[in-house]
């Protein structure tokens, strides 16, 4: 102990200070060392900026239909992009990515769509993590019949292909974005419950937990202050990858007409509305799909990066 202290003192004397480095700082640094994770973070940052500033950077109202505008303002539904500097007549309104079937500006709709997608991702995963954590923690900590019941229910939920179960749940609840989110949230609960339960089981019998109990700590205190922090790392990884799946599933539900309803500028719905026009107006199908893919890609890249960065077995790499 004294030896270490003298060493620190010596380092201080040389003008080098030994700062304590938290787990998060280490993780953050390791994350930044992975090229793919940096790409993911960059895309996410861009999306967040677009989502926040959509109301200022979007040239049009995303739900405004210009179907009844008089010439020369009038343009045909599903018109191709019109950009003034690329030779589009000056007297026509500029639509840099064209317009959709209801003559709404595609570019503005795409920008606003980022808000919905990010909201979908975070809302469903937060919901699933909260419920999954409670179920997994209670089951793992108390064990016995309670644990058995909870985990069998989770097994049953996992026995259905997730998208099909989500479709069935939305049908019961009625179509709409909120219900779609709820359905995807419910479907993804088991994954989090399992992760938390595994973490709880791995530390439940540790000496420091027994020590807290001996000192008179309540069950809740032990669970939340001593046990659950151990589940944080796997939860973060699972959650980030879960956001990607949630966005993909929500887009699929919207594509099937069970999620976002018109005129909401949701990417999956935008794509679905124009899917029969893929041969005549391919840009209206291509662009929303590309937006979905990039968003999902960002979360997948960050999730993978986090998994490696938080893996203590790879500690020597840092």
């Amino acid at each position, binding site marked *: 102990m004294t030896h270490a202290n003298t060493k620190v003192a010596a380092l201080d004397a040389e003008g080098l200070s030994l700062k304590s480095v938290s787990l998060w700082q280490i993780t953050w640094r390791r994350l930044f060392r992975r090229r*793919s994770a940096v790409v993911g973070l960059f895309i996410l940052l861009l999306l967040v900026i677009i989502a926040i500033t959509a109301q200022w950077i979007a040239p049009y109202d995303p739900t405004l239909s210009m179907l009844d505008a008089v010439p020369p303002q009038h343009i045909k539904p599903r018109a191709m992009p019109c950009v003034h500097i690329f030779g589009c007549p000056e007297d026509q309104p500029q639509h840099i990515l064209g317009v959709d079937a209801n003559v709404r500006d595609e570019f503005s709709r795409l920008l606003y769509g980022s808000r919905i997608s990010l909201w979908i991702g975070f809302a469903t995963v937060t919901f699933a993590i909260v419920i999954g954590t409670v179920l997994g923690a209670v089951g793992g900590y108390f064990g016995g019949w309670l644990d058995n019941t909870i985990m*069998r229910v989770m097994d049953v*939920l996992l026995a*259905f292909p997730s998208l*099909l179960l989500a*479709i069935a749940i939305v049908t019961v609840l009625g179509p709409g974005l909120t219900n779609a989110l709820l359905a995807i949230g419910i479907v993804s609960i088991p994954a989090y419950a399992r992760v938390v339960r595994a973490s709880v089981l791995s530390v439940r019998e540790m000496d420091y937990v027994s020590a807290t109990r001996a000192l008179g700590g309540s069950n809740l205190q032990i669970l939340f202050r001593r046990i659950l922090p151990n589940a944080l790392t796997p939860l973060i990884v699972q959650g980030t990858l879960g956001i990607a799946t949630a966005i993909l599933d929500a887009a699929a539900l919207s594509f099937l007409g069970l999620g976002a309803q018109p005129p909401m500028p949701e990417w999956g719905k935008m*794509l679905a509305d124009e899917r029969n026009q893929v041969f005549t107006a391919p840009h209206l199908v291509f662009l929303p*799909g590309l937006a979905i*893919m990039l968003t999902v890609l960002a979360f997948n890249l960050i999730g993978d990066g986090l998994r490696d960065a938080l893996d203590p077995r790879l500690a020597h790499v840092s």
Partner: protein
Amino acid sequence: MMIQYITRRVLAAIPVLFGILFVTFALARLIPGDPCRAILGEKATEAICDRFIREKGLDKPILTQFGIYVSDIARGNFGDSIRYSLPVTRLLAERLPTTVELSFAALFVSMLIGIPLGVVSAVRHNSWADVVTMVWANIGVSMPVFWLGLMLAYVFSLLLKDTPFWLPPSGRVSPGVPDDPFFEVWKLTLPESGFIFSVCQFISRLNILNALLTANWELLKDSIKHLILPAIALGTIPMALIARMARSAMLEVLGQDYIRTARAKGLTRYVVITKHAFRNSLLPLVTVIGLSLGGLLGGAVLTETIFGLSGVGRTLYDAITARDYGIVQAFTVVIAVFFVLLNLIVDISYAYLDPRIRLT
């Protein structure tokens, strides 16, 4: 030991199966709307509805209804579809082959491409081939199936029109291509209905198998052409997952001492990779492949919608939106049971591949 392990796994699956039956039963009951008026139409009078509800046993206590439902299913009676006025089992025998063919084609494509890609990028770790494969795999897992399907249709059916690479955007066979079922070609005399008849019907609707059985090369070529785009669309996500898993499993194995030993005793690189390394990396691969098959069933709804295929996924989706309880209950049960069986097979093959698992 192995038999004991299998028995234990099968027994553990039973409560899950009951749970599945209960969930499908409950979901079908929870679908909003009055079942009588959903089936007989809005104009059905009270008296007609009362009779209908009594006949279908919907006035009995909910637990009794569940009991009747379970015992019916145990006897293979899945009830009738309201929309098609047909036994659901007949519909299932009609629609399932499309989905089975599509799923297996997708899995075939994903394994055929995913495994070699993963192995190569592990063997040539950090090379450009590795980087390209991993970038591609990351994009692959992030791909919305429905978008990929539409884009493939756009490229191969429109842009490549009038080239040899043209592929059809929808359907299973072109009109006019003969697709006589094998039992007719073989002049078999079959019973009019019953189990054997259903099985033969089922097999004859697997176009590729039927084409091979009847040596119908025109049908074979045409079916494969129709299958390529949907199989790629549906197979891309599993392909990416398989490539990633193959890579990480191979990387882990290649770092082991016994690989160095094998190389040191003079075996060629090729033998070491195929015989020593690849075999040991199979274990995690089996899990990913098994679990992907389940995901394929979900993706099948989207793929079948885009490519105009009337398979299980599409039929189930239509049934849900049309409140066709019979189909919803039966198809979900069949899919979920299939999924449970699949997990069982994965677990068992895991135990077969790795003896250590049997003991725990």
